[in-house]
C-alpha cells in the first residue's frame, strides 16, 4: 500500500530532509506471461495500464518502455490542454479527456498541477475569423465552452499582445476556451505510473521491443531486450515509433513521423497568465510555474526520427512571437528540443483494433496528444479489455482510411495543437 501524499506527509518528510520518501513505483523484471502488455511508457501508455487495472480489473499486466517512463513526447510537449475541436467525434474525444483532467490530481493523489488558465486562439485574417467563429459555434453546440473575442477583448484578456493593426499579421480577434489550460507533463506520467504500480502493474523500463510473435493472425507475445514475454493482448502506444512496431507485425499505418520542436526561455516573473496560440503565424506561448516562457514551434516537413528539428522552423516561430509580443524581444532562450510526432493524414488519432487479433494501436496523435492523455488511456483500455471500441473512439478506427470516413481536423481544430 502506498503512503498517501498530503500536506502532512510533506511536513513529516521535511523533518528528514526528504530522504525517506517511499518509492513511487517498483522496478520489476518481466514475468514470463501477462494478460496484456502495453508497449510505450509515456502518459498515454501508463494511463492505459492504469485504467485497465482500475476499471477493467486486469491486474496481471505490464508496461514495457525502451527508455525511461515519460522520457519521450510526454516530457517534450508544451503541456497545453483544450477540447475546442470542430467535429463532433473530436469534441467527444477531447472533452472526455478534459473532464477527467478536472479531477485527475484527486483521483491519482498526485498533483498534476492542472491549471485552467484558458487557451486563446488568435485570428489574423478574414478566413481565420470565419473558421474560428464557425468552430466556436460548433463547440457550443457540443456543450464545450467557447467564446469569440473581438480585438479589444483579446487585448484586455492578454495585455502584452501587440494588437496594432499595422503589423504584418494583425490580430483580428480570437476564441477563448476558459476550461482549457496546462498541466505538469512529468507529473502526469509519474502519477499514472504510481497509481498503476499500486494496483500491481509491472512497469518495466529499459526494455525495448524487438519483435512481435504471431501465430497466424493472432499475437503470441513480444520479443524484448529482456527476453520473450508471452501475452494474448498487446496495446501499442509508441507515438513516433508506432510505424516501427507496426512493421514488426507486418502492418502498415497511415503515419508519418516528424520532428516537432519546442523551446523555453530563462525564467522571469509572471507576465502571461494564459495560453495564447496562433495558427496562422504558427506561434504559441504560455508561462510555466517556474517562470519560463514555453514556446511551441512547427514540425519539419520531412520524416525523421532524430528528435532535433531544423533551425529555420524555430526562427519562423520566434519572428512571429516577437511581432505579437514585442516585450519578449530581450528574452534569452535556454533550451530547445524536438520530439517525434506521428501524424495521420486527417490529423486525428487512431485508437483501434487491427487486422491481427490481440494487437491494438493507439497512435497518430500528431502534434497534440498530451491534452488527451487521460481520455486516450481510458478509451484504449476499454478497447483492449472488451475487444471493442468505446462509442467515443469508434470513429477513430484504422478502417476509416479505407471507408473514407475521415475526421479531418487539419486547420479546423485551431491547430498548432
Amino acid at each position, binding site marked *: 500500500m502506498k503512503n498517501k501524499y498530503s500536506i502532512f506527509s510533506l511536513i513529516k518528510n521535511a523533518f528528514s530532509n526528504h530522504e525517506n520518501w517511499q518509492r513511487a513505483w517498483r522496478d520489476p523484471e518481466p514475468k514470463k506471461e501477462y494478460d496484456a502488455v502495453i508497449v510505450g511508457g509515456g502518459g498515454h501508455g501508463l494511463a492505459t495500464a492504469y485504467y485497465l487495472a482500475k476499471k477493467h480489473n486486469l491486474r496481471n499486466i505490464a508496461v514495457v518502455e525502451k527508455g525511461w517512463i515519460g522520457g519521450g513526447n510526454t516530457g517534450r510537449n508544451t503541456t497545453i490542454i483544450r477540447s475546442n475541436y470542430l467535429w463532433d467525434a473530436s469534441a467527444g474525444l477531447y472533452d472526455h479527456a478534459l473532464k477527467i483532467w478536472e479531477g485527475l490530481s484527486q483521483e491519482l493523489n498526485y498533483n498534476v498541477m492542472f491549471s485552467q488558465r484558458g487557451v486563446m486562439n488568435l485570428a489574423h485574417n478574414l478566413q481565420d475569423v470565419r473558421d474560428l467563429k464557425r468552430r466556436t459555434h460548433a463547440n457550443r453546440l457540443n456543450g464545450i465552452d467557447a467564446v469569440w473575442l473581438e480585438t479589444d477583448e483579446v487585448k484586455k484578456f492578454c495585455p502584452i499582445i501587440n494588437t496594432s493593426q499595422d503589423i504584418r499579421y494583425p490580430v483580428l480577434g480570437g476564441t477563448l476556451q476558459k476550461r482549457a489550460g496546462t498541466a505538469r507533463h512529468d507529473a502526469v506520467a509519474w502519477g499514472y505510473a504510481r497509481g498503476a504500480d499500486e494496483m500491481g502493474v509491472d512497469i518495466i523500463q529499459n526494455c525495448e521491443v524487438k519483435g512481435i510473435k504471431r501465430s497466424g493472425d493472432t499475437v503470441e507475445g513480444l520479443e524484448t531486450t529482456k527476453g520473450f514475454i508471452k501475452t494474448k493482448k498487446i496495446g501499442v502506444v509508441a507515438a513516433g515509433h508506432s510505424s516501427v512496431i507496426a512493421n514488426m507485425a507486418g502492418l*502498415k*499505418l*497511415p503515419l*508519418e513521423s516528424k520532428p516537432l520542436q519546442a523551446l523555453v526561455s530563462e525564467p522571469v516573473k509572471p507576465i502571461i497568465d494564459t495560453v495564447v496560440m496562433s495558427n496562422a503565424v504558427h506561434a504559441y506561448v504560455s508561462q510555466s510555474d517556474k517562470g519560463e516562457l514555453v514556446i511551441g514551434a512547427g514540425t519539419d516537413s*520531412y*520524416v525523421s526520427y532524430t528528435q532535433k528539428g531544423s533551425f529555420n522552423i524555430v526562427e519562423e516561430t520566434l519572428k512571429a512571437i516577437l511581432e505579437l509580443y514585442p516585450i519578449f524581444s530581450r528574452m534569452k532562450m535556454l533550451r530547445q528540443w524536438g520530439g517525434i510526432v506521428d501524424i495521420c493524414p486527417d490529423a486525428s488519432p487512431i485508437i483501434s483494433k487491427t487486422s491481427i487479433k490481440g494487437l491494438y494501436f493507439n497512435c497518430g496523435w500528431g502534434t497534440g496528444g498530451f491534452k488527451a492523455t487521460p481520455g486516450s488511456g481510458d478509451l484504449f483500455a476499454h478497447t483492449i479489455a472488451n475487444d471493442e471500441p468505446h462509442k467515443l473512439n469508434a470513429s477513430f478506427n484504422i478502417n476509416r482510411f*479505407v471507408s473514407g470516413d475521415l475526421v479531418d481536423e487539419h486547420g479546423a481544430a485551431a491547430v498548432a495543437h
Partner: protein
Amino acid sequence: MFLINCPYCGERDQSEFVSGGEAHIARPKQPTELNDDQWAEYLFMRKNIKGIQFERWNHAHGCRKWFNVARDTSNDKIEKIYKMGEQPPKL
C-alpha cells in the same frame, strides 16, 4: 537540419527544399478498377521507415526540379541522390 546536394544546382540548405514524402509509390494505372483497400494503400499507408528511406524532394526555392533521395531517417544522413524515374539504389 542538413544539406542536400541538388543534382542540378549543387549543395544547398535543406530549408530550400520541400519533402515530397515516400518515393516509388506508383500511381494506379487503372484507377477505376481499384477497390477501397487498394485506394487506402495508395493514398494513405506509408512505410515511415526508421533507417534508410527512399524519398522525393523538390528544390522549391531553387531550380524547382524533383529528384529522389535515399536518406537515413534515424540520423538524417543522405546516402544517395538519384534522378526521377531511376530505380532505387541497393544500399
